[in-house]
């Protein structure tokens, strides 16, 4: 058991560190360090442009998508090298946020199912950030029950015609391409009539409307499809095998370990270390300490769980669903942490914005937090995954399992 780099790892780390020191956009480092859930701002700059420029620079020097094969724009690096890169990239890694879905989910799905020419043409600009991808799975009628989606794809000659609506699509408004899960046969049970495609988001008939979230910001979109034409050559996997294709996508989501999930703990610890209460520093208060300790061991537990997963990965073991705990733990924790930080502020905790306590970061965190417990799999879905796939408990009883999709009830009352 050790945390030491091997000589090769140490050499890789030194090379990465030197390159980052010479090339990273340092003028934004302070702002990036200060950014937290619900509040990422770069003074005087558009974060999308800064992120794309940094990604392109990395790609040109061979530091983009480290775990991808070189021919698709990656570096062919080992899992450990990828982790070392993340450690060295530090706060600049926050600029990768807009590429997570493309690099973590769309890219690997393309690698598994697209033709060789398509891979060579589409993947390198995805790796370099010149093209941004999104993932079009969720629908108003299918969130946790994603296989309940209704967007139709109908074959016309060599094309498919798409009609329907997606929702909660991160970054659709700045995406160039997307992977799209559709229903191609409503006469069979729901998992058996789905087909996956990729498409140009600028296609005629695609309409994108930002969602105004509960916290007032707009990170997600609704995407409407009206007679959108997709060539059959852009189908990923067999017709009606889209469910299995989507499982590849979701499994790759779990491979993106090591990046670390935000818990809010470092921010709270720093806040309590400096906050003066009536009778002294907050961190000297016994009640505050008990709360901090409770969250400290959850944060460190997640950190070391991730390190165990990385060690397993580097030995060639496949990361399993046990990694679902990261999001499950961090999601509700950051919500509780934010609420507690407001509690410590007393009546002034009600005030938000840059003039408020701690520049309003905990108020922004509190208002953004409910989304973290829903997006990418709700807490309840995560618990089901752990219960079923790790502990081996029975699946939920599915009353719609063997029913043709178009016979499944669509409303609860009347």
């Amino acid at each position, binding site marked *: *058991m*050790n*945390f*030491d*780099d091997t000589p090769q*790892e140490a050499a890789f780390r030194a090379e990465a560190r030197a390159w980052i020191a010479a090339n990273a956009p340092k003028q934004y480092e302070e702002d990036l360090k200060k950014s937290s859930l619900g509040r990422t701002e770069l003074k005087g700059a558009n974060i999308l442009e800064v992120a794309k420029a940094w990604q392109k620079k990395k790609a040109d020097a061979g530091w983009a998508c480290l775990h991808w094969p070189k021919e698709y724009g990656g570096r062919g690096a080992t899992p*450990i090298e990828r982790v070392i890169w993340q450690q060295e990239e530090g706060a600049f890694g926050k600029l990768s946020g807009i590429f997570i879905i493309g690099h973590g989910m769309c890219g690997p799905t393309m690698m598994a199912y697209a033709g060789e020419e398509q891979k060579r043409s589409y993947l390198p600009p995805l790796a370099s950030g010149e093209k941004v991808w999104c993932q079009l799975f969720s629908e108003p009628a299918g969130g946790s029950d994603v296989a309940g989606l209704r967007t139709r794809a109908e074959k016309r000659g060599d094309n498919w015609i798409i009609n329907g609506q997606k929702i909660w699509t991160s970054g659709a408004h700045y995406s160039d391409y997307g992977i799209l899960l559709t229903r191609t046969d409503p006469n069979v049970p729901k998992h058996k009539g789905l087909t996956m495609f990729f498409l140009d988001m600028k296609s005629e008939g695609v309409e994108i409307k930002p969602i105004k979230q509960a916290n007032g910001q707009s990170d997600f979109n609704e995407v409407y499809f009206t007679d959108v034409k997709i060539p059959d050559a852009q189908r990923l996997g067999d017709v009606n095998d889209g469910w299995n294709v989507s499982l590849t996508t979701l499994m790759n989501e779990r491979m993106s370990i090591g990046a670390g999930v935000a818990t809010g703990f470092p921010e709270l*610890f720093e806040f309590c*270390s400096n906050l003066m209460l009536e009778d002294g520093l907050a*961190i000297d208060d*016994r009640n505050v*300490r*008990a709360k*901090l*300790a*409770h969250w*400290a*061991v*959850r944060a*460190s*537990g*997640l*950190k*070391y*769980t991730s*390190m*165990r997963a*990385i*060690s*397993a990965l*580097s*030995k060639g073991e496949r990361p399993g669903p*046990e990694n679902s*705990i990261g999001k*499950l*733990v961090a999601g509700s924790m950051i919500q509780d942490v934010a609420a507690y930080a407001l509690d410590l502020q007393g009546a002034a905790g009600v005030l938000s914005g840059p003039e408020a306590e701690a520049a309003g970061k905990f108020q922004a965190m509190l208002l953004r937090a409910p989304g973290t417990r829903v997006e990418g799999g709700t807490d*309840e879905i*995560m*618990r*089901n995954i*752990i*219960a*079923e796939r*790790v*502990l*081996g*408990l*029975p*699946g*939920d*009883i599915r009353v719609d399992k063997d029913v043709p999709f178009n016979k499944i009830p669509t409303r609860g009352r009347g």
Partner: protein
Amino acid sequence: MNFDFSDEQKQLRNEARKFLAEKCPPKAVRTVLDGKEPYDRQLWKGLAGMGFLGVAIPEEFGGAGAGHLELCVIAEEIGRALAPVPFSSSVYLAAEAILMAGDDAQKQKWLPLIASGAAIGTLALFEGKGNPSPQAIKLSASGDSLNGVKKPVPDGAIADVAVVAARTGSSGRETDISLFLVDLKADGVEAKSLTNVDPSRGQAELTFRNCRAEPLGRAGEGWSIVSQVLDRAAVLMAFEQVGGADRALEMGRDYALDRIAFGRPIGSFQAVKHMLADMYVSATLARSNCYYGAWALSTNASELPEAAAAARISATQAFQHCAKNNIQVHGGMGFTWEFDCHMYYRRANATALGLGSLSYWEDALIDRMRKRNAA
């Protein structure tokens, strides 16, 4: 980086698990729980025979000289099996204190006896309610004579030797405390068994009246040694707790798969599934914190005090969480004496207190994190 136990260490864990599955079934735990025996002597001999008691004791003092990572994997199995033996008192507390502070003669005398199981050791620290603190120690030493009362002393009624924390000064500082080694079979010390929430491991009151004792370590360094021993023991005990938590989770899972209600296994109801998923989360976080503690312990890292506190808190929470919800999954049967659930519940709550309570370690963790940040 390799943040995992080695294949050899995992092999040792499997050996320990196999050995304990055979020699320490729940029936063996019950023999002690029911008060028929103060501890399982056969099992104790067996553990000594396997070399488990002295796994981290150097060869020159009669141990196997393997190391603390090896001791961690054995501790996990001891906890998993609820072994009704004075393993933690003798190995984590007495042996560690003697190794750390003893002179060569003391090590030569006691460590081989502890490694072979011929002598049981313990640490006599507490004097009634409260958490570890130099102020709470009233038992006094004058010359080589001790006077005072210690309770609770883990395994105090069956121990042969105790490391005793005593007051040797009155400056109000922690340097008022010194450690002594006491042969508990000698005159001037009386042991009385106390009832406790986990009768599968004994607790006692030790009364010292002009009891002869020899100093362990330098005068005035007692508290410093005790603090270090508690940190080391916290990591080892955390592995016991994680072993117990995992077993309680498995018991709950297995029962949820077998028990039918409303025409289906109760493990198919989300209320039960999610409860078990949350238990898994606690146990996993605790295990990961423990691995970090193991690394710090085995390398004597400067991070040990912080890592030990985190492992201790996380493992205490996980064992308590898994043990209480294991009963909940079992429903009414979980509340019977006949089912084994209560044995885990008892052990979970007893181990939560032995080295200082949860709130004590929470306070310690934040204190240590703060000092590191300030440094």
